[in-house]
């Protein structure tokens, strides 16, 4: 079976682990439990009649003291940049990570997940910033809480990876 490594990247507390948990286990917890290091999960997905095993690397989020260990990105066929619509700076962080990841991995498929879409009415990220991000990368509005667009997020990335191979 075709196997692909993907990474979830972004600032801390944007919901990377929650997105993986929703995708892999169809579960969601409101409790914030920070990730330390890396969590590796697996899920088989069927895309265009082809089974693909995703090795999902959920990386510890960036903060003032902790930057992404670039060796974790080695071998990735695609990545998801997660940002929190309530925290505008997390979109800036996501796009900065995209730049450094591109420098390391080249042009591989990537998607921005604007997470916490269930709280969209209270978002603080501006429309202008969202449009600027959409000009750079595909953007999906996700909610790990409601499950909205979570499966679409992973299958769109898988599809892009298959097309890119």
């Amino acid at each position: 079976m075709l196997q692909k490594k993907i990474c979830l990247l972004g600032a801390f507390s944007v919901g990377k682990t929650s997105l993986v948990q929703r995708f892999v286990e169809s579960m969601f917890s409101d409790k914030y439990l920070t990730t330390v290091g890396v969590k590796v999960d697996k899920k088989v997905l069927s895309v265009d009649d082809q089974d693909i095993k995703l090795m999902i690397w959920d990386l510890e989020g960036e903060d003032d003291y902790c930057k992404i260990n670039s060796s974790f990105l080695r071998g990735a066929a695609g990545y998801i940049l997660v940002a929190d619509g309530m925290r505008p700076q997390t979109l800036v962080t996501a796009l900065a990570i995209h730049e450094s990841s591109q420098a390391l991995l080249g042009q591989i498929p990537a998607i921005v997940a604007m997470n916490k879409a269930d709280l969209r009415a209270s978002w603080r990220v501006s429309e202008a910033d969202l449009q600027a991000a959409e000009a750079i990368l595909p953007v999906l509005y996700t909610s790990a809480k409601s499950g909205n667009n979570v499966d679409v997020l992973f299958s769109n990335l898988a599809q892009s990876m298959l097309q890119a191979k």
Partner: protein
Amino acid sequence: MLTCCSAIWRSPCCRPNDVEGDDGDGSAKVKPEMSVIDAFYAELQYAVFSVLCEGESQVFTCLVSPPAWFQQFAPAIALGGTGNPADDLPYLDNFLIDAATFWQSQAVGKLASGPWVERDAEGGEWPLEAIALNVQGEWLLQITHLGDDFNRQRRQRQTARENLLTQEQLELEVLSRTRQIKLREAEIALRLVTAACFRDEETGSHIRRIGLYAAEMGRALGWSQARIDDIRLAAPMHDLGKIGISDKILLKPDKLTPSEFEIMKRHAEIGAEMLGDSGISMLDCAADIAGCHHEKWNGEGYPRGLKGLDIPETARVVAIIDVYDALSHKRVYKKSFSEQETLGLMDEMAGEHLDPNLYQVFLSIIEEVRVIRARNPD
């Protein structure tokens, strides 16, 4: 509200008696044939391998009796047996690339992978770390269950990140409140200026242009965004003091007599008095401008006869753009001049009436000034 919850990962001692060789405390059962040193290693919760390079591939030989937690991921690997632990722990695949470089370098010491969390078939989480060592020329790989160390590390980071989140939320709140205050300031400024406009011939377009020209000058001068915002709102209030001048003089269509002009000149002081001493940066800026926009670079202006750099920079900026706007637009008492004529007159004023250095800055942004003018006609 964020809550710090207890760890959900597996500790080496929390496994039920469902793993072969597990005697209930998570460690491998001490078999009768096991040496004391093997039993000791089994208690340490380490899986240790020697590594040999065979061509492109590496052969891993298990040197200690694997602890129970390891056996459930790699049940086929036993003491003295061979097998690549990365086949069962995919994270290791990545680390072994760095480890190979480390082993081949023959560097003394160790290389740690950093923590990672492995999930078992039941969804339990196991915090692990791999360490590559060079010991007496032997290549060793140690895989450790981090247990409570991980728990402590996670608690520390959790607390630090919750603090960062609180700080971030507070900063966003301050930013949002500041924006609201700025909007209110802008609204009050607009209403003040509108009130003044009712009393003389100044148009809304003139007010907008003066603010936009001033902001453009601020940008060209490298001012902070806060200062640029201040002058954009403050510059249109330069003639606010005219509120205090009687209609008889303010609206007189003929030339003012010398005594009437003396009264008219008082609008600068009146404006400065109306806007001053508020402790609000935008209004302080407006007070400087209102009080000093008729001062001249050569000291022959009014009301105080200030000279050169003694005149506040904001007022020197507004003096230039006010002259430009007045000359280039039609007024009841004069026709409008072409841009060429306007700049010709202003060239003569530079160094006398106007700050010659700031005038050069104004000339450098003339393209932007034209765009503002075109977009805001009378």
